[in-house]
């Protein structure tokens, strides 16, 4: 590991004002990072500065502050491109978030390219946002959805993967880079290579990895990649579609409207080149600028360092939690193949009761089906409690989680 500068988590914490909050008489322990991350002062300041100093609509304003806003917006695009090592800034389309990103791809690439009887392959560990848009498309086109199942350890069943390629005419494979429930980091690079041998395009839902580890789209060679700004220290309402340039060029527009057109006539129009073709209307200017600053922030800390920090935390949490009586942990028990996500149930305590009990101790976790109902069915549970970590979490916070879980067990007389 290139951990040249020691990672100073206490120093990182100082950048996040919300971490000082007291909830129910205790200092907030925020362990719901897979849902959304907290924001550093640098990002908050960038939004503040935009609205106070150069708020203007972009691209067509012939005045100073509009030019500044346009430059900052496009600089953010370039920063994001560098962050995931895209070849060109034009391969970055700004959208609202991962959900909109996937819907855009289903519409703009899926509708022209998926037809009767074609296979769309997904995995059983997908978030609803990487299932429902494909169900809609499959229904419209009479295409077939095929699923790669998971093992009891929460890993993808590679035999399903091979079998669907043999038998099902799969044209598109959509997979989570990492599971938002189990934490499993999937071997995307290898699977993309295999898919390409079968002439299949691959979309990677990287909502749970781009914020947490180095992601290099050229190294992965994915055709499409989607992620959200708000899970990576950025504002809500901004997300990213990455697509290879040649694919973006042949894709049809998503929304029609201003900004995305070259010429409009009464009965027909022509489109701008990507990425603008996909960015109709006034975009989330402040959001993109904020995301650019979030990317700067993460880059300065170093994505390898962040990954190492989270891996160590996950190892610590797995060890600590597995010692608690009546604890059932779902997904891989090896932090080397898992992101900073630990899903569990304690005895027969319902996940919502557990979240309330932890909240009484100022600990924020998520409980329920985590927008992954097919996965819950596969696990045979109505829901789980999920603790998910980020760059500012500490071992002391995991100790507090463990203590509070012990208290929950006592209250429920397990």
């Amino acid at each position, binding site marked *: 590991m290139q951990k040249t500068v020691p990672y100073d988590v206490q120093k990182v914490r100082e950048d996040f004002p919300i971490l000082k909050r007291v909830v*129910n*008489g205790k200092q907030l322990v925020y362990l719901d990072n897979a849902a959304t991350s907290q924001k550093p002062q640098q990002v908050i300041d960038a939004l503040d500065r935009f609205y106070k100093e150069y708020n203007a609509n972009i691209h067509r304003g012939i005045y100073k502050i509009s030019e500044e806003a346009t430059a900052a917006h496009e600089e953010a695009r370039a920063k994001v491109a560098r962050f995931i090592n895209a070849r060109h800034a034009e391969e970055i389309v700004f959208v609202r978030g991962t959900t909109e990103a996937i819907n855009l791809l289903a519409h703009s690439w899926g509708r022209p390219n998926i037809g009767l009887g074609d296979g769309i392959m997904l995995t059983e560990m997908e978030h609803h946002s990487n299932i429902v848009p494909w169900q809609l498309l499959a229904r419209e086109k009479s295409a077939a959805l095929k699923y790669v199942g998971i093992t009891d350890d929460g890993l993808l069943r590679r035999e399903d993967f091979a079998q669907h390629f043999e038998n099902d005419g799969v044209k598109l494979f959509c997979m989570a880079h990492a599971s938002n429930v189990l934490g499993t980091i999937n071997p995307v690079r290898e699977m993309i290579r295999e898919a390409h041998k079968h002439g299949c395009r691959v979309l990677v839902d990287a909502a749970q990895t781009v914020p947490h580890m180095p992601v290099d789209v050229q190294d992965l060679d994915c055709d499409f990649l989607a992620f959200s700004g708000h899970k990576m220290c950025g504002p809500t309402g901004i997300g990213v579609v990455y697509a290879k340039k040649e694919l973006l060029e042949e894709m049809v527009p998503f929304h029609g409207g201003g900004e995305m057109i070259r010429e409009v006539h009464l009965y027909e129009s022509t489109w701008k080149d990507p990425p603008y073709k996909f960015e109709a209307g006034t975009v989330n200017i402040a959001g993109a600028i904020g995301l650019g600053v979030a990317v700067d922030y993460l880059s300065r800390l170093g994505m390898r360092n962040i990954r190492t920090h989270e891996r160590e935390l996950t190892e610590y949490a797995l060890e600590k939690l597995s010692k608690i009586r009546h604890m059932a942990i779902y997904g891989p028990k090896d932090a080397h193949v898992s992101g900073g996500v630990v899903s569990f149930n304690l005895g027969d*305590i*319902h*996940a*919502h*009761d557990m979240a*309330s*009990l932890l*909240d*009484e*101790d100022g600990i924020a976790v998520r409980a*329920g*089906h985590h927008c992954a109902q097919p996965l819950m069915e596969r696990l045979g549970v*109505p*829901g789980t409690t999920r603790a998910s970590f980020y760059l500012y979490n500490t071992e002391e916070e995991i100790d507090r989680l463990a203590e509070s879980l012990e208290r929950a067990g006592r*209250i*429920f*007389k397990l």
Partner: protein
Amino acid sequence: MSSIYSEIILDYYRYPRNKGQLSSPQIKAKDSNPLCGDVVEIQIELDSDSHVKDVRFNGQGCAISQASASMLTELVKGKSLDEVRKVSKDDIFSLIGGQLSVARVKCALLSLKVLKTGLYTYLGSLDSSKDELASL
């Protein structure tokens, strides 16, 4: 801080009163909270006087939803339909006996919503009671 999960809640959750089915209930209804997956069904048998002669609930879900359903069945047993109609949110909150967080209020009120749905269906006044049901 003290827990909403009092001994009483836990007791009703672990040892639910009036859980099960009735053979010929005049009133019955079932609903779920899609967000949590909590499910509650309530059945009521009336006596000749239109008082609650017997009542049962069935369901699955969190301790708050299941304990409050069980406590509600005890509350309404023996009551007239008019008294049942007057059971309010606050009655449920005082049965639970603590400050519920906003996210959990729905769990606590699911059984009351089911009870009222069953009652108004029986009385034929479901349409005119939509506002009340929506507020639960």
